[in-house]
């Protein structure tokens, strides 16, 4: 009897010890994967998915209407842009995203980009190229030079005449603004892609600038170039918070110069009337001292719930960069000017449908939530007969022809066409590798300061132009692999000790 009980205890203890060890081992593994002590980890997802039972780290591909759902085991993108989430159990500093894909894209959609959400308020994504077929095509016809920058980045330099033998030689001339075979200056004969180069801009010293008061209301985030002479400056904004959504609507205004010096002002929102539809009037002023005369960049970061009802600027040499969203009744017969040869227009408001004059042609905006691409013949004048239209371009918008300021060179975007005077292209870009019809491309994204909500980074896969206007075009993703890098556990402990 005693022997039997003793055996039972021994047997039970043996089994119990065994499963406790297994459980501790499993818990340790999951904790290890949660903490990622080495600071490096790879998460991936492939299609079809296989036997994996977990929810995975890369998920929530949306919106559904931009996916071909005829085969649930495939991820076929048919509309732009496509959003997805990356869950990480801790924060990281850097993501190296490798995408393997097949594509059936037309010449109307030559660009594939990947981005991470940097600012939830403005919806700003940091985008990096996966593929730019304009550069791939021109790489075959033009003289091509490459330079490796650091460990990761590759600088691609294309020239249609064999003027430079090294990239360095070109960069020195670019810095001095004296490019070979380029009489009109770098902005006329240079095109860039994913390369931050801005020409310094100056007006003749005797050019008079006068204060400007813009009474045309505009909605959401905007940025503009403004020419400021030496001396004090002050911008004053009258704002209307529409309170159409629940979230608070802070407004941040940043003024920065060419040397990277900036000052900013933030207007907090206590959000007393969330989603009430009752508007609140607010004001924001920012002032400073311009040490040097030149071009300044002003960024207004705000949600689409905010309307800037008026803007007072110390200078009338002012151009909105890339986007202008005029609202209110006074937008009727609004006249704008752009330096770009194309214009993208969309509206969310059925009352805003109607004709738009761009250059010498009249176009009809007859559908909401659709992006219309207009190409002009003639001058860059835009006449709007309706309000509430989101206008976008790769150039600038100004309220008068004389106010157009754009120090940016031509961009190799989807509307790029090499002009007769385009002699050079510089880009931070590496063409994808192709094997058996599957392309593999890599994008390195900086995650410091990226928006991470409930452990999720928000990513975007963009093929500008893909949608209803490009039937039969698609991109099918085979695999997304994200290699993350961040602080090690030891570095984290050291930072705690220092605190």
């Amino acid at each position: 009897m005693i022997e039997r009980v003793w055996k039972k205890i021994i047997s039970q203890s043996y089994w119990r010890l065994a499963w406790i060890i297994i459980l501790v081992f499993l818990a340790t593994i999951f904790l290890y994967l949660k903490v990622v002590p080495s600071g490096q980890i790879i998460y991936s997802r492939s299609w079809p998915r296989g036997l994996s039972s977990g929810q995975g780290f890369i998920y929530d591909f949306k919106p559904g209407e931009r996916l071909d759902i005829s085969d649930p085991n495939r991820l076929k993108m048919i509309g732009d842009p496509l959003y997805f989430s990356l869950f990480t159990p801790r924060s990281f500093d850097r993501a190296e995203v490798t995408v393997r894909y097949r594509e059936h894209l037309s010449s109307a959609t030559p660009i594939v980009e990947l981005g991470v959400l940097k600012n939830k308020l403005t919806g700003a994504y940091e985008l990096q190229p996966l593929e730019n077929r304009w550069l791939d095509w021109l790489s075959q016809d033009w003289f091509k030079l490459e330079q490796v920058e650091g460990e990761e980045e590759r600088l691609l330099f294309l020239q249609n005449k064999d003027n430079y033998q090294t990239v360095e030689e070109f960069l020195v001339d670019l810095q001095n603004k004296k490019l070979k075979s380029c009489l009109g200056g770098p902005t006329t004969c240079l095109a860039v892609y994913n390369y931050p180069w801005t020409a310094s801009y100056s007006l003749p010293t005797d050019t008079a600038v006068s204060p400007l008061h813009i009474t045309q209301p505009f909605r959401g985030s905007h940025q503009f170039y403004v020419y400021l002479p030496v001396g004090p400056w002050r911008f004053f904004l009258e704002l209307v918070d529409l309170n159409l959504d629940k979230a608070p609507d802070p407004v941040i205004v940043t003024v920065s110069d060419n040397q990277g010096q900036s000052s900013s002002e933030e207007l907090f929102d206590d959000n007393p009337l969330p989603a009430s539809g009752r508007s609140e009037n607010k004001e924001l002023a920012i002032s400073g001292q311009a040490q040097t005369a030149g071009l300044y960049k002003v960024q207004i970061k705000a949600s689409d719930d905010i309307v800037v009802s008026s803007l007072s600027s110390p200078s009338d040499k002012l151009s909105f960069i890339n986007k202008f969203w005029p609202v209110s009744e006074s937008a009727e017969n609004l006249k704008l000017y752009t330096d770009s040869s194309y214009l993208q227009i969309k509206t969310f408001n059925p009352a805003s449908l109607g004709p738009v004059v761009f250059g010498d042609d009249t176009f009809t905006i007859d559908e909401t939530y659709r992006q219309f691409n207009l190409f002009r013949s003639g001058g860059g004048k835009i006449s709007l007969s309706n309000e509430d239209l989101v206008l976008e371009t790769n150039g600038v918008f100004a309220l008068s022809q004389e106010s157009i300021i754009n120090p940016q060179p031509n961009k190799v975007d989807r509307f790029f066409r090499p002009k007769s005077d385009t002699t050079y292209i510089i880009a931070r870009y590496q063409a994808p590798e192709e094997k058996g019809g599957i392309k593999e491309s890599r994008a390195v994204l900086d995650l410091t300061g990226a928006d991470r909500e409930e452990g999720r980074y928000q990513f975007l896969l963009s093929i500008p132009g893909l949608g209803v206007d490009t039937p039969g075009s698609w991109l099918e993703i085979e695999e997304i692999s994200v290699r993350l890098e961040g602080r090690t556990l030891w570095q984290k402990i050291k930072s705690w000790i220092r605190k």
Partner: protein
Amino acid sequence: MAKNKIMDKKIIKQEIFYFLSSAMVLFVIMELLWPRVILAYLNLNWLLLVWLMTSVWLLKEK
């Protein structure tokens, strides 16, 4: 001897049940503390299903 074997089997079944119950509790607590830390790798529904099957099996024997 045969009795011992039956007893051993019963112990194993019991211990599997205890193991699955403890794993379930531990994983749920970890999931509550750090959302998605378990679910990203393992679907807890499957664990719950195995646990239920073991429970029914054990109850049937009793």
